[in-house]
């Protein structure tokens, strides 16, 4: 399966570790209100992003996170009455950040070949491995197609404006969904042709170019995840 991402990470981190971090961080992120835990998760994720050369995204996330801290810190001083609302907004943003960052790390820094290698190392059957890998490969593609469809609709005066959404709901629905579904089906056909060329359909044991194994970094990251979990649930 060809992948548009050809970035190499500075230090290779096993995809399984990233997946574990994504799951654990989302779990904790959605329930924890502790600022230190959120800071810890944020640091790990930003380091992973920088490691995967996602500099612009890491910078953006850093600014957003810093802003929420600033909002929390100064809300009480500056806006005596409406401080509560500001705190809620800051918390809401922090709530979603580990999940969003984890997803973009998964999607943009893991190659499909690494994915499949890691999954097969775990001795999972093809029925799980292939759909799962395709899924992560597909999120950016669908997003791109969706933007193209939206701009094509806007050219023809059927943009996603409030007025159109309310008055021409069924037309909007049909004009966006039919191409979206057709695109998905066609791209998936092409993708499976590419996958077959790479011998994914053959019932033989495959060899891998991707060098996937657990290294010291992985154990370090897993330890951090465990520590954060312990802090959240025990202390």
């Amino acid at each position: 399966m060809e992948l548009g991402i050809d970035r190499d990470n500075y230090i290779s981190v096993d995809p399984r570790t990233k997946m574990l971090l994504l799951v654990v961080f989302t779990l904790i992120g959605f329930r924890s209100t502790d600022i230190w835990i959120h800071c810890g998760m944020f640091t790990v994720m930003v380091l992973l992003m920088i490691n995967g050369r996602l500099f612009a995204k890491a910078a953006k996330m850093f600014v957003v996170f810093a802003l929420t801290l600033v909002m929390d810190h100064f809300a009480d001083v500056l806006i005596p009455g409406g401080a509560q609302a500001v705190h809620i907004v800051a918390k809401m943003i922090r709530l979603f950040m580990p999940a969003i960052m984890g997803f973009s790390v998964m999607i943009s820094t893991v190659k499909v070949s690494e994915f499949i290698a890691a999954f097969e190392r775990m001795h999972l059957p093809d029925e799980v491995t292939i759909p799962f890998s395709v899924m992560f490969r597909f999120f950016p593609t669908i997003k791109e197609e969706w933007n193209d469809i939206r701009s094509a609709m806007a050219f023809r005066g059927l943009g996603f404006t409030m007025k159109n959404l309310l008055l021409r709901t069924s037309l909007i629905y049909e004009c966006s969904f039919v191409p979206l579904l057709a695109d998905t089906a066609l791209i998936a056909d092409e993708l499976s042709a590419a996958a077959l060329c790479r011998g994914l359909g053959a019932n033989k044991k495959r060899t891998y170019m991707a060098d996937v194994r657990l290294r010291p970094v992985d154990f370090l990251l897993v330890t951090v995840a465990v520590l954060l979990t312990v802090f959240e649930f025990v202390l």
Partner: protein
Amino acid sequence: MKEKKLQTKDLVMAGAFAVLYVGIMMILATVLAFIPGLILLTPLVAGIILGPVYHLYLSKVPKNGAVLILALLTGLTMITSSIFVLVYLLVLGVIAQIILIRTDYSAKGIAASYYVMAMDGIGPLVMIYIGKQALLESFASYYGEAYAEKMDKLTPTWSLLVLFALALAGAFIGNRLGAKMNAKHFRKAGVA
């Protein structure tokens, strides 16, 4: 006899459609969550919108296990909200799969199984009923006390039945739309 075993081609297709299915459901749940009452409409809206996705997917991959994979992927993506969601979705997937096998993937069978699968729109809301107290506390800390109180009033246990009814209504409309879209566009264009 038609081949009913999943090929690599079908697995790729399953992954692609799962992205649409899961992505749309997640976006809906997140968007609707901003207003307390609206999140309860997720089963209805998801049922309507996902109908065509489901119909096209099954007309492309009428194989044993196709729905199960869809349920598994959806469940795994939603697992972050609760482990029960995965179990719940797998149960739905198995039932839907049995219906499909019994009806030999006919149009009617697809529609019937969608009534079951559309219940997955309740998945993101399951937490409201299972861990109500914990959830209300976290709502209170995140969205404020007012939101939590409204949420509490809106979701007595019997309202779960309303959610199921909404999901069924959504599936009914979704089925109509799915069948219509397949006939009007995809079969003509050679996609389905």
